[in-house]
Structure formats: structure tokens, C-alpha cells
């Protein structure tokens, strides 16, 4: 359906007439721009794009996109998006959510939408804080974090959205820094192309309530040394001079330096995002140094719509019921004269 017949768009076509109201310097702007740049590259008609969000700073996103959109209720975007997609599988459906929206109030919907593998995309703005309600800790806030609702430090240990997602059988997971629009744009395009539920976790800086929470890994200065940008089929190499790599020692990933202790590029693991077994993907997600970014997992699988569609076609073809009359007047009926 895509490609040829589609109109040529520029990013401006996706900018709505609404004034953007995030705090100046918020990474949400970067995500918005990256999306507006990615969409023209996707080869999809504007009227076939739907953004569905929950509640939070991040969830204001649909108002700024000149496409169809629903700004719904807190945590429930996956349900709404599922209905949109099942009603019309031709649409390109995007869920916009925050760490609180997706993993606290909407945790149940989050795991189930991933499990079902509907062909839609989820962008999770993880700022490790509740932004809109002015700074309470979230399920991704770290222990000890001082917030409005944890003035003496957070005592609730966090979980990681990526690990949670893979536990819920996510087929596609990517992670990217909120200050990296170029890679983000590319990941959005890849997520759109991927058939199945795609989850993109953006490490999003909230300048007001949790400023700098990712700087130690996302800052321009340290980024190349602290992050490994994964690409399918390529060796897991990182570092400013591409001197470091990952190897598997026992049940652990280990950082090695190429050229030291007889390590050559050949010893470095090659990233296989398409592997069905998520073990290595989980290990990459858990890694504290370096932080894994890029597309960690992209396992191709049957989607819910495909299963539904196949079943419906089969049943339709074999059924004697074409109209409701055929059903209503079938079986045990009787005449009253």
C-alpha cells in the first residue's frame, strides 16, 4: 500500500496550528521534531496517522501533530489505540506515553498491548518523574531520588521499562537519548516499518523536576563512551575511538578493549536484534555500562490483526450466515398463525 502513491510531505505538513506549551529546554521538543521529520519518510498518508496519548506532559504530544489524534485518560492509551487499530488496520497508530502513564497507572495495559503484538508503535517518554503533576517519583525513579513526594529520598526500587517489556514478550524494543534527534528519527522510521508492536524508550530530560538525570550517559561529551549504539548485524563496539566492545563471559556481558589482551574485532559479539530468544537482549537492557541504545530487539512475529484477519476470512468463507436474517431464522423456529 505504501511507497509509490503517497503524497510528498515535509515536516511542516505534520505541524499543527497549536502553540507548543512544554517548558523551554524540555526534551519533549526534540521528540516532537524528530517525529515530524520521520513521518514524511515513512510513506504514509497524513490522514492515516493516529496519535493516541494518555495524560502527562508527554501526552500533550497529539495536539501538536497535524494528524488524527486522541488525548485520552491517564494510562489508557493502549486500550484506545488497540481499538483504533483493530477497527482499521490500515492506519499507522502511535501511542505516546510517559513513565508514570505507561508503567504506573497504565502498567496493566502496557504489558498486554506488548503481549498481543498489534502492529502499532509506542513512544515512552521516560524522565523518571511525574512531570505534569509537578514532580513526584515514578516507577522508574531511582532509590534515594528526592522528589516532591519523597523529600527524604525515594524508598521504592524502580524497574526498567525495557526489561518489563521483554518480560511481556515485546517483539521490538529500542532505547535512545532524548538529545539525539538524528538517531531518534531513524528509530521512529524503523519502528513504523516493523510489523508488530514497537516500543521506543526515550531517555527524556525534564529540565524542571529531574534535570540532568541522564546527563552522565547522554551528554555529548560522554555519550560515545557511555553508550553503545546497537545495530543489527554489526559488532557491539563503542567508545570515542571505537576501541571498546562487548563479549560474553559465562553468563555476563563484559567490556573489553580491542587490541588489549589479544582481543580482536572478531572476538566482539555481533548484534542480532532479530533473534527470537530474548536472553541476550535482556542482558543488553540490564547493562549499566555501557547503556544500550538503538534497536535492541526486533523479532519478526505474527501480529494480532493478521491472526484475526485470517480467522475472519476463513469463517466468512465457510459460513452459511451472510445476513442477520440467515441467523435469526435459523434453527429452532416455529410459526404462529
Amino acid at each position, binding site marked *: 500500500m505504501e511507497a509509490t502513491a503517497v503524497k510528498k510531505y515535509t515536516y511542516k505538513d505534520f505541524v499543527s496550528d497549536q502553540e507548543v506549551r512544554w517548558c523551554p529546554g524540555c526534551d519533549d521538543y526534540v521528540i516532537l521534531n524528530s517525529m515530524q521529520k520521520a513521518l514524511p519518510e515513512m510513506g504514509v498518508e497524513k490522514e492515516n496517522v493516529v496519535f493516541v496519548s494518555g495524560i502527562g506532559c508527554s501526552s500533550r504530544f497529539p495536539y501538536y501533530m497535524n494528524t488524527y489524534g486522541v488525548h485520552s485518560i491517564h494510562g489508557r492509551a493502549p486500550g484506545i489505540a488497540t*481499538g483504533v487499530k*483493530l*477497527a482499521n488496520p490500515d492506519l499507522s497508530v502511535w501511542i505516546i506515553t510517559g513513565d508514570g502513564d505507561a508503567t504506573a497507572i497504565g502498567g496493566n495495559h502496557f504489558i498486554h498491548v506488548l503481549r498481543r503484538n498489534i502492529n502499532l508503535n509506542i513512544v515512552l517518554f521516560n524522565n523518571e518523574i511525574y512531570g505534569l503533576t509537578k514532580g513526584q517519583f515514578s516507577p522508574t525513579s531511582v532509590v534515594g531520588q528526592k522528589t516532591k513526594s519523597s523529600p527524604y529520598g525515594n524508598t521504592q526500587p524502580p524497574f526498567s521499562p525495557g526489561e518489563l517489556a521483554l518480560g511481556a514478550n515485546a517483539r521490538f524494543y529500542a532505547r535512545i537519548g532524548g538529545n539525539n534527534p538524528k538517531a531518534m528519527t531513524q528509530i521512529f522510521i524503523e519502528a513504523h516499518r516493523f510489523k508488530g508492536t514497537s516500543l521506543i524508550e526515550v531517555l527524556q530530560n525534564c529540565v524542571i523536576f529531574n534535570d540532568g538525570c541522564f546527563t552522565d550517559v547522554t551528554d555529548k561529551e560522554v555519550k560515545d563512551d557511555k553508550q553503545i549504539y546497537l545495530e543489527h548485524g554489526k559488532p557491539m563496539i563503542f567508545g570515542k575511538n571505537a576501541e571498546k566492545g562487548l563479549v560474553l563471559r559465562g553468563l555476563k556481558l563484559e567490556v573489553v578493549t580491542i587490541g588489549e589482551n589479544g582481543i580482536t574485532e572478531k572476538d566482539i559479539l555481533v548484534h542480532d536484534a532479530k533473534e527470537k530468544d530474548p536472553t541476550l537482549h535482556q542482558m543488553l537492557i540490564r547493562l549499566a555500562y555501557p547503556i544500550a541504545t538503538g534497536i535492541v530487539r526486533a523479532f519478526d512475529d505474527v501480529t494480532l490483526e493478521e491472526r484475526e484477519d485470517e480467522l475472519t476470512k476463513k469463517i466468512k468463507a465457510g459460513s452459511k450466515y451472510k445476513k442477520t436474517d440467515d441467523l435469526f431464522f435459523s434453527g429452532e423456529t416455529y410459526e404462529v398463525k
Partner: protein
Amino acid sequence: MSIESIKPAPKELEGVVIRFVGDSGDGMQLTGTQFTDTSAMFGNDVSTFPNYPAEIRAPQGSLYGVSGFQVHIGSVEVSTPGDSVDLLVAMNPAGLKTNLYALKKGHTVIVDKDAFTKKNLEKAFYETNPLEDGSLDGYHVIEVDMSTLTKEALKDVDGLDNKTITRSKNMFSLGMVYWMYHRSTEHTIDFFNKKFKSKPELIEANTKVLNAGYYYAETLELISNSYTISPAKMVPGTYRIIMGNTATAWGLLAASEKSGLELFLGSYPITPATDILHELVKHKHFGVKAFQAEDEIAGICSAIGASFAGDLAITTTSGPGLALKGEALGLAMMIELPLVVINVQRGGPSTGLPTKTEQSDLLQAMYGRNGESPVVVIAASTPADCFNYAYEAARLALEHMTPVILLTDGYIANGSAPWKIQSVADMPEIKNRKVTKFTENWHPYKRDAKTLAREWAVPGTSGFEHRVGGLEKDSVTGNVSYVPENHETMTHTRAEKIRLVQNNIPNLKVEFAQQGDLLVVGWGGTYGTLHSAVKQITEEEGFNNIGFVHFNYINPMPKNTEEIFAKFKKIIVCELNSGQFAFILKANFGKFDFQQINKVQGLPFSNDELIQKFKQLL
């Protein structure tokens, strides 16, 4: 091989209520359904109510493992499954113990004597055998060695295991009841032939036992004569027996076909609403998309999404589920999308009485959301008219771009009755408000002048790209707005939009006296009990000053409501809660004095209690 033998002249009856009870494994539902279908095909009006145990596999012989099926058949209009019972068929002591209260004094109880073993008596907490200790004095008891006779009837049939033999004894009792009420066994034998097509030994066995029961009753000296109930006067046409929940599901199928929209159901299982989901999932051949979600919230949210994308969207639930759906329902109201929410009410609060009936979710349906969030509320009143009101819910949702809550209840949802089959061709038109061609100055909240309904621009339609959301929006552009006056305007507009639905619903009709001393007011699933009570008072006791009006449209109410109230000296509002509809009526029609009859026992009204109370007011 059906039976046409010589019978004593049968006694003519206007109606009879029969209850079949036994252990969950005794096949009482099947027995009852067969008797119902046969009677309906004979031309009787029928009304039934099943009573299953709440436990899935209750221990055999236990009191709480009793399964029952009540059927009321009549040569005159039958509008309820009946209160007290004319014939009780009890397949074990537990069944007798838990159901004897319902049997009219002096009437007949048939028991399987073989089941009254020491063990079964103990399980039913009988200290002595009720068949021997005189506790059934005052009833006409027919003791039958049913298990023995069933074995005997099957001794020549090969290939049957013991379990199959024991399980077919319900057909023995059915055969007896067929003979007593002068019914042919033909329909049931046809049923065996179809059901056990590939198992001829089962056809033979069941037919043999059915006939054995029939002949046994005929030759039994205990039964002095049989009864007959002539065909009822019913509107000519093609009928079928339908359960309320099935009728609801089919009403939605009809609305989908008529409107040309695909049907989407987002739901989460909950008693007693689950059968609607069970029914709709079967109909993939009509393109029905039935989605079992992870919870009620996801259920309604998926329906909202499907509605946004242009489907006829439904969510089904019962009270606790409606509570969970509240916030999302408010969103659907706010973004003004068509949505049908079906609440099959059960006993509340909290988990309450899941398998019992009640009308106690009315105020939840009306007001159970944050902010001022009016939606259309309608209620079905009989198993068969669940079809019409499900259809109507869809029609109003689509024509007025609003959520519509349809209230049914456990009583009508599980009950069944004859339904004069309605073809979609004969159903009222359903218009929807989908846009097609873009014109300048289009706004998502542009409204129809007469109905205030907005237009439905669904994704995939070029030019109409727009955003909706739960935040308050400008009354003209639909953009987010926090302007105080605008919020008030929008609040009033949303209320007025629902009020205007009045122009699209029928007026109330009063039955029996058109004016007079007492107006009986009901709503929803109590129609049958209220109607038959007023009918009895009018026709049998000669009162001509009592009228009856029943509400199916609750928000908004029909235009002529006040006019009708004004024609009666006293008004009595009858409902299965502590007075929720009365509360609404008092708030809206303050100049009238509303008296109340309320019952909150998880049970329907009984005829006697109603008649007694009406008489006190006359």
C-alpha cells in the same frame, strides 16, 4: 417414533409453572429447555428462568450444587417465569430441600426415589427421609424409582456405560411431564437425532428413556388425569425462544447491518453479562470484531478507539465493571463519540450477589462519573425486547454522537421468552454522522442545529485531521480552552444535547386505566411482574381505576411523562432497589407525590406482594 396413544380426557388450564431441579450433573437445563421449546412450538406463550449454582463444579448432592429451571407456559399472555410453582420435579434430596418452599400447597412434586439414599439425605442435611417422615403431607407426592426404571429401559441397548445411563434419567422425568401436560415427544426426539447424529446409541437410549417416562406416567395410577394448556393468542409470525442476553447481542448485530457499520465489542468477562460476549464472538462471519481485553477499562477504551476509527462500538459489563469504566465513559462523553455501554445489572454493592438480579445501578448509570457528564440511559424490559433496546441504544448513539447506557438485568438477561423474529429490513432507519467531503471552516465540534450532535470524522478521511481529548474545548474551534464562560457553555451544551434526544424517542403509553386513582410506575426488567399484577387486579378483581406505565427511556424521559402523571391521584414507583428511579422522578417532577415499593433481596417482585400493596392504595 413419537407417541400418539389413547389418553384420558385432559383438564384445561390457563397456565402452569413447572420447576425442574436436580444436581448440576442431572441435566435440568436441558430438560427445562426441551419442555419450553415443545410448548412454544405447540403455541403456548412461555417465559423461563434458569437458576444455576454459583460454583462451577459443586460437590454432587450438595445444597449449593442444585441446578434449577423454571418455565411458565400459558394459553394466555405469560409475562413472567411465575412466582410459585404448580409442579416440582426434584431429582435428588438437595433439590427438594431447596425448592419445596416454592411449590403451591396441594400441588404435585415428582421425586426420583432412588436418589433418596442415606448419603444424599445427609448431604442435603435431612435428618430423616422427607418421603417417609410426613414432611410432605399436604402435597401430592409422586415417588418414582427413576434411576432403576431408566436402567431397566436401557438394558437392551448396547455400548452404554453406567454414567451415560444415569445421566439419561432426566429424560424419564421429561417423558412423564410431557404426558401430564399432553405434549408430544416429537420435538425432543428430533432434537436427539440432530444432537447425537454421530452417536446412534445415544439417540436410541435417550428416546427409549423419554418414551419409558411417558408410558410410565400414562399407566401410573397416581396420576389421575393429565392437563392441557391451549395455544395462546399471539401475533402471527415466525417465532423462536430467545434468552435476553442473546437478544441483546442480536439487536447489536441488526444495528450493525442496518447502519452499514462494522461491529466492535471490547469487553471483560463478568456475570451476568458474559453471555453477550460469548454470543458476539461467534459471529465473525458478519465481520464482528470482539476483543476480550485485560480488564473493563481496556474494554471500554478499545471500544472508544474503535468508535473514533468509525466502527459501531460496544462495551458490555455488569455493575462492578461499570464502576471501572466510569472515567473512560466520561472521556467518550467529552469527545462526543457514539458508544453503547451495556450493563447487565446484578445484586450490588461491591461483588454483591453476582448471580442475582437487581436494579441498583440506575444512579451509577445516571451520575457515576466525575464532573457533569450526562449520557443517554435506556432500559430493556423483557428478554425479547432486549433485541429492540440494544438496537435502539446503537441508533441513538450514532444519531446523537453520544454514549448510551443500556440497562438490562440478570432476570431478563438469563430468562427466555418467545421472540417474534424481526428482520433487519423492518427495523427503523439508522443514520450516522460520518463526514465525507472536506469543506473550509469545518470544526470537529460543529453541531447539528436540531440535535446539537457533532460530526464524525474518522481517520482515513483526508482533510479532517483533528485532535480530540478529555480537556475542555472551545465551543467553536474544538481547541483546548480554559475560558470560564466557555466551560459553562460547553457544560450546558452537553446537557442540552442529551435532552434533545427526547425528540427522537417515542411517547409513553399507559396500559389499563388511562386515568384514575393509582398509577403504577416501573422501569426496566420489572415489566413482566408489574404488568401481570396490574392485569390481574384489573381483569380478575374488577378494578378499573389503576393504570400502568413503564419507562424504557430514562435519560431523557419521554415528553409526555408529566402529562401522564397528572392523570392519576396517586403514583407508586416500583423498583428492585431502595428508590433510585423515585429519587430521579422526585427531582424532576417535584409537584407530584411519589410513593414507593422497593425490594432489595436479589429477587424479582412476586405477584402477591405487588397486588397486596396496590390494593392498600386503592
